[in-house]
């Protein structure tokens, strides 16, 4: 039973989460006995396509159509459906990000496939096909048993550490019969924050709350994040006060993330905030209030003023990096 994965790329190379997805697909294919087929849309160098083989793809289907150089959920879904039908694949996997979450439901609707969204583990085959997903914004997990013939999964980033192997993939072109309706949504403008690590796939995140006292104090967090190579995040009051842009807001009504390291500075740890971040592998809390509830959910804690502690932490990280 073959597995299809949507391998996203940007700036000419595959994102880490695409490699993670290929590997996840390969593990499912190995479980089920079948091919791991990565579908890639838009211009990218042949050498890059080959690279997916080293992460477990047995076949790469490349849709080299200029019209899919820009994202279209409908066109992407059509390509995945065509790939699935061509290879009789029963499992289709995308990332649980804005692209994957836009494409996966369109694929599921067409193939009448049950969906497990936000997977954090391999499917269990013991009793049917069940996938563990995050629910209640990280306050719990649900095992979703899918009974339909075709199954769609969206995978949370940072679930696996992709390992490069020695295998290689067969690269083929996939031609999809697109029509005008597939490109009915016209892109008028794109505003991108360049150079920043995207929050959803960041392995390290530095986050600030109301305890930072104002946007003018974010410099110390930016420096710590820059030194660590971390993405910046913030709590809801910070986004609501427009100290920071909304896309940095994590918590129950913002984004849900699960980085390897989450450094929370001046965030008290309201239940709604914890919901978005408490599946982070390691949590460091810096807060001047020793009673802040966040300390109960933390692995490491420092009591003190953010503006005093954070620069000291940045110095310590610099020293550590220099010694590596």
């Amino acid at each position, binding site marked *: 039973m073959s597995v299809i994965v949507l391998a996203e790329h940007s700036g000419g190379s595959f994102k880490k989460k695409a490699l993670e997805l290929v590997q996840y697909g390969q593990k499912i294919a190995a479980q089920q006995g079948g091919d791991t087929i990565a579908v890639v849309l838009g211009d990218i160098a042949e050498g890059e396509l080959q690279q997916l083989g080293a992460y477990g793809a047995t076949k790469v289907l490349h849709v080299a159509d200029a019209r899919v150089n820009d994202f279209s959920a409908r066109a992407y879904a059509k390509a995945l459906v065509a790939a699935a039908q061509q290879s009789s694949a029963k499992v289709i996997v995308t990332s649980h990000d*804005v692209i994957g*979450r*836009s494409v996966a*439901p*369109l694929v*599921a*609707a067409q193939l009448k496939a*049950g*969906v*497990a*969204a*936000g997977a954090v583990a391999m499917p269990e085959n013991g009793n*049917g096909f069940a996938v*563990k997903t995050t*629910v*209640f914004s990280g306050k719990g*997990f*649900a*095992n979703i*048993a*899918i*009974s339909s013939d075709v199954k769609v999964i969206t995978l949370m980033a940072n679930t696996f550490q992709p390992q490069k192997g020695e295998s290689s993939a067969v690269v083929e072109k996939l031609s999809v019969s697109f029509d005008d309706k597939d490109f*009915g*949504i*016209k*892109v*008028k*403008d*794109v*505003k*991108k*924050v*360049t150079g*920043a690590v995207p929050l959803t796939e960041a392995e390290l995140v530095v986050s600030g709350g109301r305890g930072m006292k104002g946007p003018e104090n974010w410099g110390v967090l930016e420096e710590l994040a820059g030194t*660590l190579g971390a993405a910046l995040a913030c709590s809801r009051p910070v*986004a609501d006060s427009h100290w920071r842009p909304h*896309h940095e807001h994590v918590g*129950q*009504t913002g984004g*849900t993330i699960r980085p*390897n390291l989450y450094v929370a500075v001046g965030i008290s740890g309201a239940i709604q905030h914890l*919901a978005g971040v*408490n599946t982070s592998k*390691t*949590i*460091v809390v810096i807060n001047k209030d020793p009673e802040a509830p966040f*300390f109960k*959910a*933390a*692995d*490491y*804690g*420092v009591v*003190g003023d953010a503006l*005093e*502690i954070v620069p*000291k932490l940045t110095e*310590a990280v610099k*020293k*550590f990096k220099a010694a590596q």
Partner: protein
Amino acid sequence: MKILVCICQVPDTTAKIQFTDNNTKFNTQGVTMIINPYDEWYALVRALELKEAGTASAVHLVTVGRADAEPVIRKALALGGDEAFRIDADSNDTYEIAAEIAAFAKDQNYDLILCGKESIDYNNGMVPGLLAGMLDMAYIGFATRIEVSGSTATVSREIEGGEEVDETSLPLVISCQKGVAEQRIPNMRGIMAARTKPLKVIPSSGAGALATVSSYEMPPAKTGVKMFTADQMDELVAALHNEAKAI
């Protein structure tokens, strides 16, 4: 222009999450149910704004649920909206919920279907896209701004590390998040009016579930926090490297 807003009932954001019946059910004991914040604050309020501006002629609300979901629909009607529909089915399968709504909406000629970007209980964010697929409508996910002029919609949506402005023609399904509108508090007049607004019960189309929750799990408990003083930052970094293997 007719707008359909999809509403779902979820546990309050402060609710303690517990599971019962050998971890196969969510324990609703003592849990207050609310309208999913993304549905209420953004999708519903934007629909009402479009009606107030004269762009929309009617705003309909739909939910999939049993009679216990009605107080939440009445609360939504108190904010505004002309009529509400409750599809009489009980499901936590995203495909089944979308299929029930699609079966209801397919003959209604909605120009715009607005949903929240995800429910805060299952966090799937799949219903809007599934609906678009099932109804063969265009779909824009994770919108932060929606403008409609004639039959053209201009929608800003979240992309990785930024925002994109899209333009397309109706009909259209959009999933909404922060930025689309501002939360409103229902006033007394709205609450009174909601009591007499039509709330029709639609029988289930019998779509059936393609997935079920076989069991729930709680996240593993933290073992306890290790504290460091301001002068022990080197030790903290060493712990992050050696012990947590985070850096």
